[in-house]
């Protein structure tokens, strides 16, 4: 079986991920926002006698190093091993897309072009003569549509053809002035019989185009001495012809002229009415309206959170019921007390508390995926940049920040779209203020316990908003102190609005939810068992016997209950967890928190979902008899003063994200020292605000 390795390259928003999805059955994430596919993604499939693997490179407008993604792409194309380039272009905007195509042609690799979005082009009355274009460019050109799957068969067929046939000479030509100088350099190289892996033409173009690698390569060669004056003369000539512009401008100009020539020959646009507004313009007239834009955005966000809460609560009841049933069923079949407690109170209760929040998380992830894939996300960046810029952030910081509402891990990773180091670091430090999906369970629990059901949606929304506002204020503080300096320029494309692809959203949500579940099954299950152990051991049998005897002797249900509660309390206090909690209690006392809350917060450092299961274990221990039906919510509202609950929520909002996210943060920020700073920063801010919040609530 022959193996073909393909580098998939295209500008942002040309539907690359969709195309790979259409070719083979894969789970790639697609976004309309420039650079959602930051990571290099690879798919492999079999076709006839070939095993074809496609590396989906980050979208790039040009082969420059403007952002990290663009650098990834241009490095890969120039240095990695692959058989051919598959260039994806948007049929409705070839003028722009071919700019990258000409740069790719310049790489002198085997290549073919997929003109994607053929269906859209037809609707816009754009007629493309792909065969003639193929002839003019000297590479295979196939019209495809990732949406309707049109042309996909032919594309795969042509991939094989391109692979099997020898590489054709590129037909990319420059203007006469440049071609003349290229020829001069080629002549000099061949006169001196210069040895190189690159073709003479490629070397000449690279030298004129100021390619650093080529200069580095030639600098050590004896030929450099004679080549240098020729090159200097050539560059002087070219610049003279182009009004002394910079080389990058000249090359862009040259490519554009070449492309316009091709397009004039191959593309016909019938009866295009320039005065008629496109759908995107019509939508934009409303969505990015100077006055209505931001209120509409806030409304959409508010709607998303309402939905998360309202609709999510329905399946939550079912899940809750299921785990209750599972716990009692399994419990009946185990005779050993310790093992039963481990399985039912530790494992099932802990994991159940986490799985309970799957519906909320699915709805939230669907919402974020919708924002991304429709193209609305970049509008929001446009609307908010003015505001964000005032606080030292970048309009594009919005993307990682909003992703942060889902999960901090992808949020930290998506901060790579910010090119400037300081802008990126600043955004990284603020992401934690955007409450992630894992914190949602804790909020839902506390809001449910301490507020009326009617106001719970609004309260939840204000928790998220307060966190976000606080984060932005902190950004300003950091920008004025730790991250002084120039801001990154804000220049970005606002892509056409597109209907989201159900398949891709499904894949995204599925993989995210699966990740959450896997975490529940492994990490959180282990953490629940650990906490169960810490709270149940060491056993104090004497104490237990004492109380059991007292309960036996007591008269009336009330006094029996009182004694059994007292026993549970005492048992907890002498457990390992009780000792840890007692040890750190003084720190949390000014916030009105007892050791149980303190312990719950500590366990949240491992993973935020664990806080719920910890509270579950801590507050329902030993509550057999008649308190069986009372839920964790009720227990919390009975045992925790309102002001302490407020302080608890505030700490949850601000303090260090989970262990996994902290590890990712440390990787993205570029060093452990930043993790240490983040710890100090979040701990200090969290404590300070919780203290203030506690005392304000007490005063009211």
């Amino acid at each position, binding site marked *: 079986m022959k193996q073909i390795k393909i580098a998939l390259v295209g500008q942002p928003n040309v539907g690359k991920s969709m195309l790979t999805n259409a070719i083979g059955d894969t789970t790639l994430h697609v976004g309309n926002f420039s650079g959602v596919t930051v990571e290099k993604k690879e798919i492999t499939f079999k076709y006839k006698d070939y095993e074809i693997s496609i590396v989906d490179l980050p979208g790039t407008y040009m082969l420059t190093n403007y952002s990290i993604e663009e650098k990834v792409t241009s490095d890969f194309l120039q240095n990695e091993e692959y058989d051919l380039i598959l260039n994806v272009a948007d049929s409705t905007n070839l003028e722009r897309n071919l700019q990258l195509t000409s740069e790719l042609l310049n790489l002198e690799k085997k290549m073919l072009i997929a003109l994607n979005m053929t269906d859209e082009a037809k609707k816009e009355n754009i007629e493309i003569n792909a065969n003639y274009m193929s002839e003019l460019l000297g590479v295979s050109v196939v019209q495809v549509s990732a949406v309707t799957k049109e042309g996909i068969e032919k594309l795969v067929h042509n991939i094989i053809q391109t692979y099997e046939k020898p590489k054709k000479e590129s037909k990319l030509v420059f203007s006469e002035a440049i071609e003349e100088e290229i020829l001069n350099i080629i002549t000099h190289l061949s006169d001196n019989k210069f040895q190189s892996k690159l073709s003479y033409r490629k070397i000449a173009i690279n030298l004129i185009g100021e390619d650093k690698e080529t200069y580095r390569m030639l600098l050590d060669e004896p030929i450099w001495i004679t080549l240098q004056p020729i090159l200097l003369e050539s560059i002087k000539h070219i610049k003279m012809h182009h009004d002394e512009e910079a080389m990058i401008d000249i090359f862009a100009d040259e490519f554009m002229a070449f492309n316009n020539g091709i397009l004039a020959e191959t593309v016909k646009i019938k009866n295009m009415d320039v005065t008629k507004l496109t759908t995107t313009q019509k939508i*934009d007239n409303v969505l990015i309206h100077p006055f209505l834009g931001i209120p509409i955005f806030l409304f959409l966000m508010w709607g998303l959170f309402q939905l998360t809460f309202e609709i999510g609560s329905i399946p939550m009841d079912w899940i809750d019921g299921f785990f209750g049933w599972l716990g009692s069923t399994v419990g009946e079949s185990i005779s050993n007390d310790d093992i039963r407690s481990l399985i039912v109170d530790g494992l099932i209760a802990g994991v159940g508390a986490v799985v309970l929040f799957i519906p909320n998380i699915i709805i939230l992830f669907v919402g974020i995926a919708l924002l991304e894939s429709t193209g609305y996300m970049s509008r929001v960046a446009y609307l908010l940049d*003015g505001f964000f810029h005032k606080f030292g952030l970048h309009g594009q910081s919005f993307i990682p920040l909003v992703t942060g509402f889902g999960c901090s891990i992808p949020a930290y990773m998506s901060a790579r779209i910010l090119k400037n180091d300081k802008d990126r670091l600043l955004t990284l430090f603020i992401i934690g203020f955007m409450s992630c999906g894992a914190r949602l369970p804790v909020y839902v629990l506390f809001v449910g316990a301490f507020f009326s059901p009617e106001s719970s949606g609004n309260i939840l929304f204000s928790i998220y908003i307060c966190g976000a506002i606080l984060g932005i204020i902190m950004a300003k503080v950091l920008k004025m102190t730790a991250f002084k300096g120039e801001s990154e320029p804000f220049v970005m494309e606002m892509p056409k609005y597109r209907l989201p692809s159900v398949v891709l959203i499904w894949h995204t949500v599925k993989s995210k939810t699966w990740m959450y579940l896997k975490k529940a099954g492994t990490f959180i299950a282990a953490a629940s068992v650990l906490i169960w152990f810490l709270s149940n051991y060491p056993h104090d049998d004497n104490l237990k016997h004492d109380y059991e005897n007292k309960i036996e002797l007591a008269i009336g249900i009330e006094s029996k209950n009182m004694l059994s509660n007292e026993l549970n309390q005492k048992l907890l206090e002498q457990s390992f967890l009780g000792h840890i909690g007692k040890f750190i209690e003084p720190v949390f006392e000014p916030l009105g928190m007892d050791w149980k809350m303190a312990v719950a917060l500590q366990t949240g450092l491992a993973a935020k979902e664990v806080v719920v299961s910890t509270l579950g274990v801590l507050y329902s221990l030993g509550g057999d008899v008649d308190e069986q039906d009372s839920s964790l919510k009720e227990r919390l509202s009975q045992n925790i003063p309102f002001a302490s609950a407020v302080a608890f929520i505030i700490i949850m909002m601000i303090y260090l994200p989970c262990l996994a996210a902290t590890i990712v943060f440390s990787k993205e920020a570029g060093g452990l020292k930043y993790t240490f700073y983040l710890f100090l920063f979040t701990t200090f801010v969290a404590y300070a605000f919780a203290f203030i919040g506690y005392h304000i609530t007490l005063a009211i």
Partner: protein
Amino acid sequence: MGKTIIDCDINKSYLVKKLHTTGALRQRLISFGILKGTQIKYLASTKMNATYEIQVGKMTIALRKDEAMKIEVDEYEAN
């Protein structure tokens, strides 16, 4: 410096005359096809003119006021 994007009239076309910037920003603008001689159209701006929206070919580009001020333009005479 002459007229820049921030002095333009809404929904009118202009020709780029000069980019008053170098390095990464220039590269970025060029990669969007904004270079000398390109026809651009000023579409809108946000409140307080913090961010501008321009059309380059078929693309819509958003840029901040600081960046918009670096793109010098000439009137475009439609024939």
